[in-house]
């Protein structure tokens, strides 16, 4: 990756020098030729060297540093294998494309457990080796053939304490009640979490959500459409709240704490009826690093790694032992802590793995 970037920069500088008349046409063309040749050999070299590293495909930014310090460091110490990153975001379509093209460059994806269901079924993933990975070190039902939940994120909402001084909203029913709680809201625009929230607002019990009644959920969602805006990324959700665009906004639960701190408590996170989402590690079929990736996943399950990830990213551990060791002050922000557990709903990855296309497209049709 860096070699390629270096080549690109060299070429760009060359092109600028050529344009400014500081470089002769001939030298510039020679540079182009060399760069082409060199990138070809760099790429070839990368393929050969791949077995000696594990490449994690994630979303970059802070999560790259956090995965490196929380899991990568311990894994490299144990195995001598370094952890590298591809930060382009492992969406289902990209994983499918990578595996179909036969040029698999990632070993483990920081994805969703429903991706494991959808892509496992179509043969795009390696089955996990449960002689290396421990099935008991996650939430019940979140260790599947093609993926295991390592952390939990979630969907919850935050509200503006200044907008609702007497009696703040406490449930999704309040969130969807624009008469009692006027103001703009925000929801996630790719259906996930938004459908569950609408159903809970409509009175569905939190443990009887699945299979989701899409039509019922959409009726609730379109009823407040005029007062709703929709976000597509965590940072967008956050900016809608801190810039005062919404009085109540859905967020990825793990970001709630930093938003509270950032706004000096003006915006508060509501954990009641939050939806816990299993973030999962999945392995693309034919991954270059081979079986070593299973050791990496096992390392991620260890208590120190799990606690570090929580401290670094706010993602709740799935290993019961790590949950038990969490500090008192962290408990309210851990989605599966003893206090939160009775209030929250658990996502069903199998339903989403089988119904994402129908749910997302119906949702987009309803909000656009």
């Amino acid at each position, binding site marked *: 990756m860096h070699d390629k970037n270096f080549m690109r920069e060299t070429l760009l500088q060359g092109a600028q020098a050529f344009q400014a008349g500081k470089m002769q046409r001939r030298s510039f063309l020679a540079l182009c030729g060399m760069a082409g040749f060199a990138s070809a050999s760099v790429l070839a070299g990368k393929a050969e060297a791949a077995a000696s590293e594990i490449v994690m495909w994630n979303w970059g930014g802070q999560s790259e540093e956090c995965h490196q310090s929380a899991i990568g460091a311990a894994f490299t110490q144990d195995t001598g294998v370094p952890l590298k990153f591809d930060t382009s975001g492992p969406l*289902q379509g990209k994983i499918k494309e990578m595996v179909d093209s036969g040029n698999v460059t990632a070993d483990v994806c920081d994805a969703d457990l429903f991706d494991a269901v959808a892509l496992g079924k179509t043969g795009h993933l390696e089955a996990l080796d449960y002689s290396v990975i421990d099935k008991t070190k996650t939430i019940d039902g979140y260790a599947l053939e093609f993926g295991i939940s390592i952390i939990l994120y979630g969907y919850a909402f935050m509200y503006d304490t200044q907008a609702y001084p007497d009696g703040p909203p406490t449930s999704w029913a309040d969130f969807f009640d624009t008469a009692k709680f006027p103001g703009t809201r925000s929801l996630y625009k*790719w259906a996930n979490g938004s459908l569950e929230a609408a159903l809970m607002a409509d009175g569905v019990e939190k443990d009887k959500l699945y299979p989701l009644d899409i039509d019922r959920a959409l009726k609730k969602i379109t009823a407040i459409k005029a007062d709703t*805006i*929709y976000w597509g990324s965590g940072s967008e959700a956050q900016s809608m709240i801190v810039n005062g665009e919404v009085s109540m906004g859905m967020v990825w639960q793990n970001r709630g704490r930093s938003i509270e701190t950032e706004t000096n408590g003006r915006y508060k996170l509501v954990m009641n009826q939050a939806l816990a989402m299993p973030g999962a590690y999945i392995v693309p079929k034919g991954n270059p690093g081979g079986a070593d990736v299973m050791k990496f996943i096992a390392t991620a399950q260890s208590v120190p790694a799990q606690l570090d990830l929580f401290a670094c990213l706010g993602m709740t551990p799935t290993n019961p032992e790590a949950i038990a060791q969490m500090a008192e002050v962290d408990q309210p922000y851990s989605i599966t802590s003893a206090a939160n557990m009775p209030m929250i709903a658990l996502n069903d990855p199998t339903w989403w793995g089988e119904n994402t296309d129908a749910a*997302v*497209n119906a949702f*987009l049709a309803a909000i*656009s």
Partner: protein
Amino acid sequence: MRLPLKSGWLLVLPFLLLVGGLFLGPILNVLWISVTEPAPGFGNYAQLGSSDTLRRILWTTLRVCVMCTAFSVILGYSIAYAMVHATGPAQSRMLGLLLISFWISVLVRTFSWLMLLGRNGVVNSTLDALGIISAPIPFMRNELGVLIGMVHYMVPYAVLPIFAAMQSIDGRVVQASRSLGGSGAQTFWRIYLPMTKPGVVAASLVVFIINLGFYVIPAVLGGGKVLMVAEYISVQVLITLQWGTAAMLAAILLFGVLALMFLMSRFMKLSTVFGGART
């Protein structure tokens, strides 16, 4: 010395092959997917008849693109007119400012608009402080927001072809019209505007075609409610894995643009629009 035609073709042959392989290949692949996934046949195209959602998305895209093109070209025309009639240093300064705006990334622009025109943005809070409004004006997170963002991005693209067309006009033609008794308005509508038509058409085509593929601006400034084709294609490729639908929509965009070019070519020589030889 003049090379015979054949060896001239040999010189460009490697590039033709490159274009063929790297450009036509993927396009053909997209067309292929559109008739083979999930099942062979024209099932994906039949969705256009059966799905209200797809028709609505295409209609939103068309509506926003046409409006954006109209506003961009009108604004671009005025700017180009001012630039052509500015002298020496002033003209270079204007051109410089125009080119600088090309370098500002679309994300930066998008978030700047939110800071300016958002609910608690500079404009709304100023108007509120002055007591002119009681509730914030919803400039952003709707179709108006998408239009503002897109027009702002596209104006420089509209200015350049129109500016080039205006520069090539012989000023004496305008003087001749005036000396023959034409009023200012008559001279503009009957002499100046028709002579800049190739520039206007080129600007409209460029702006419209680039607009069709807009993704970030509608996604962010539209607040999720202004769903245009590019974003929908991306969702179908990345999230719902409906590659057949995505490829079909991409093909529709491609055919739409080609049909537009064809229609234009019926009315005027496209080579003059794109600065080719004038005959």
